[in-house]
């Protein structure tokens, strides 16, 4: 039971922070299917800087995760500039832009990983080895039955995510920036008429989604996979999109959706292990979150409402 909660949380929270990124982008009116690509590219930059720094300074790569998180966020944000420029400046179709960015991220990072491994480290490998981040347990709280698991074997990044998520909620719902951002996704003309630059707001929203996705990607790299490789593209970005849709583009309900996905995943793994099934069956149980996605879609999508101007190309002159 405890493992289900511990593993579920450590998967749900990165998913959540990525979904928040998606919420920012979509609430501003920009469809964002590129989360998958952002998190992969962010993790790539984060992992690359970690191994490079480790290589030159001699610090153990496992101790570099704060640094790598920083670089992953910068990397994800940098990569998201492509989506912002294509869909805002050049008014490209946002779905196509998102899909292309995902393909580009996969191809580019796989290629660069093998090349850099060969050229810099002289190794024939398609991954950067990172190890698993340390964990900590809060004594006392951890002894409470059931909920205690929440405070047991916690990754530091989970704390970081919770802090950022609270700030993201405040920014989106309480500040000027957030008011204008949400209005841009509902009716950009009204924002424009109020003398606010819609493009600027949407640009920042997409960059925020890149930044948060990069962070999420790095979390996955340092926990589930313990390295950076093309395995990072497991479809978690799309799962985050599913979560934010079930969450009706609102932060708190999205957290609930992410937790459901997280526990479904850890629960599936747990059952598979408890039944001592061969690993091929474990894979079968791993699709649990996706089956759940389908079911939730059937029941919840009716009452949900996307931002009104989502995906619409904003043209000032249009009447």
């Amino acid at each position: 039971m405890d493992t289900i909660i511990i593993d579920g949380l450590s998967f749900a929270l990165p998913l959540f922070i990525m979904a928040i990124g998606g919420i920012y982008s979509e609430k501003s009116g920009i469809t964002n299917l590129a989360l998958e690509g952002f998190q992969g590219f962010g993790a790539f930059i984060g992992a690359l800087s970690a191994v490079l720094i480790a290589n030159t300074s001699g610090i153990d790569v496992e101790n570099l995760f704060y640094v790598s998180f920083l670089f992953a966020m910068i990397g994800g944000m940098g990569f998201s500039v492509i989506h912002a420029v294509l869909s805002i400046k050049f008014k490209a179709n946002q779905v196509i832009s998102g899909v292309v960015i995902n393909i580009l991220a996969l191809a580019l990072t796989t290629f660069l990983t093998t090349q850099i491994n060969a050229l810099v480290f002289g190794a024939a490998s398609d991954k950067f080895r990172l190890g698993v981040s340390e964990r900590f347990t809060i004594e006392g709280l951890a002894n409470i039955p059931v909920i205690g698991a929440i405070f047991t074997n916690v990754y530091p990044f989970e704390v970081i995510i919770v802090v950022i998520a609270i700030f993201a909620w405040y920014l989106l719902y309480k500040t000027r920036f957030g008011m204008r951002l949400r209005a841009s996704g509902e009716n950009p003309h009204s924002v424009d008429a109020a003398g606010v630059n819609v493009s600027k707001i949407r640009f920042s929203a997409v960059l925020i989604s890149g930044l948060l996705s990069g962070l999420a990607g790095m979390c996955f790299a340092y926990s589930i996979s313990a390295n950076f490789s093309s395995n990072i593209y497991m479809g978690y970005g799309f799962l985050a999109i599913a979560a934010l849709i079930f969450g009706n583009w609102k932060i708190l309900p999205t957290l609930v959706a992410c937790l459901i996905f997280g526990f479904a995943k850890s629960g599936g793994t747990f059952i598979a292990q408890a039944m001592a099934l061969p690993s091929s069956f474990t894979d079968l149980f791993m699709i649990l979150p996706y089956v759940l996605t389908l079911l939730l879609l059937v029941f919840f999508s009716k009452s949900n409402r996307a931002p009104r101007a989502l995906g619409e190309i904003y043209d000032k002159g249009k009447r």
Partner: protein
Amino acid sequence: MSDYIVEMKHITKSFPGIVANDDVSIGIKKGEIFALLGENGAGKSTLMSILSGMYEPDEGEIYIRGEKVQISSPNHAANLNIGMVHQHFKLVEDYTITENITLGIEPIKRFAGLFPYVDIRNANRKIEELSKDFGLEVDPTKKIADLTVSMQQRVEILKVLYREAEILIFDEPTAVLTPQEIDFLLGIIEGLRNSGKTIILITHKLEEIKKVADRCAVLNKGKLVDVLDVKTTSVNLMAQLMVGREVSFESEKVPAQFKEEVLKIEHLTVKNEDGFEVVKDVSFTIRSGEIFAIAGVADNGQVEIADAIAGLTKVSNGKIFLEGKDITNESIRNRTEIGISYIPEDRQSYGLFLDFDLSTNLALKQYYKEPFSSKGILNKDVFEQFGSKLIDQFDIRSGQGIKTQVRSMSGGNQQKAIIAREIELQSPLMIFVQPTRGVDIGAIENIHNMMIQQRDQGKAILLVSLELEEIMNVADTIGVIYNGQLQKVASSESLTTNEVGEYMMGAKHE
């Protein structure tokens, strides 16, 4: 210094293919209601969009309070105390009234002296006060989605007042309102003037100008025709200047020649989505060469009758016969083929594809047939020839002819395009629902003449209109509806406007 608060000198502004404002000069005095009169597409909105910083003029100068300015953005205009209440509201439906009004200038407070947040509570209070001051009471915490159109307009007005506008521009504010709401709004506008504000009122409704305006500038095809003193100018002269020719307020008609029966409705009953009977046991016939008008106050079932005949709504009881054939359960396309043309009420969502060009829109009802397409392939040349022909024949005005995107055309010309397309089908029955709503006098005259011409060619015409004047003017036979029931069917000569009005209110029964 001149005594004008706003002066626009030699303003010229072009859009691709059209000069929207051609060397226009006007001066507006502080504290007056200045009306801008002109047909659809005359350039009124463009001129005022320039004043409110939405467009930059190609040429010309603007002076505000005697100082030369270049108004580069709506923000800049707001700083000069100019505010515009737009024709198409710019509101966020999901936001409250306060959130909409303060958007862009949200009041800020700090939490723990550190984190800034939008102080909605304070803003709510301020807006409540403001709305009381100007007689525009609203509940600031209500969401826009829950408001009626006239309430939404109040929000737009409050938005401008909240930004401390002294010069208020209203772009066709009454187009979307009911008669009572119009009276109320005109009262508000007068009140604003009396409290010292300067008002620019764009409209093509002469009665409104006569009622509240002090002076009135007339625009025609982008050019300034004249600036008139409203008190000393007759409505007829204003109309004439606006249209650029003499207009008759009554249509010329030869007596109707009724022939064989085209449409027969028997005991028609229609239910709405909630299962409520909105049309109750209605029977009537329309003959070839007859204009049959349904008169009634809005939402008394008239639109549902038209929709049921066109096949847009399901009939729950009764029968519809077209030229003797029972069409009660036919598909829409079959009805079109058999012979129904339909000019819908909401021309923008049902009548046209706004982002397609004019020739495509004109061919919309025939594109799947020879010669427009053969074996599933569209023939663009035929589209274009057909389009050009209709543009000439029906005098549809647009910037770039058949290539014009319909969205950029004026409402009157969009309507003419739909009517041209439907007439071209040569259907024995034509249904017009509110054909002249939001259309100016010149185009109204045009549309009425088209209808009468079709009648004289032997069509049967069903007209649904909320404008009693229009009905008295063009109809041969009038059916008055109240609460889903026909109260009276009689020839138009045998009824007076007053009588029809009484039947419309349900005050008089057969």
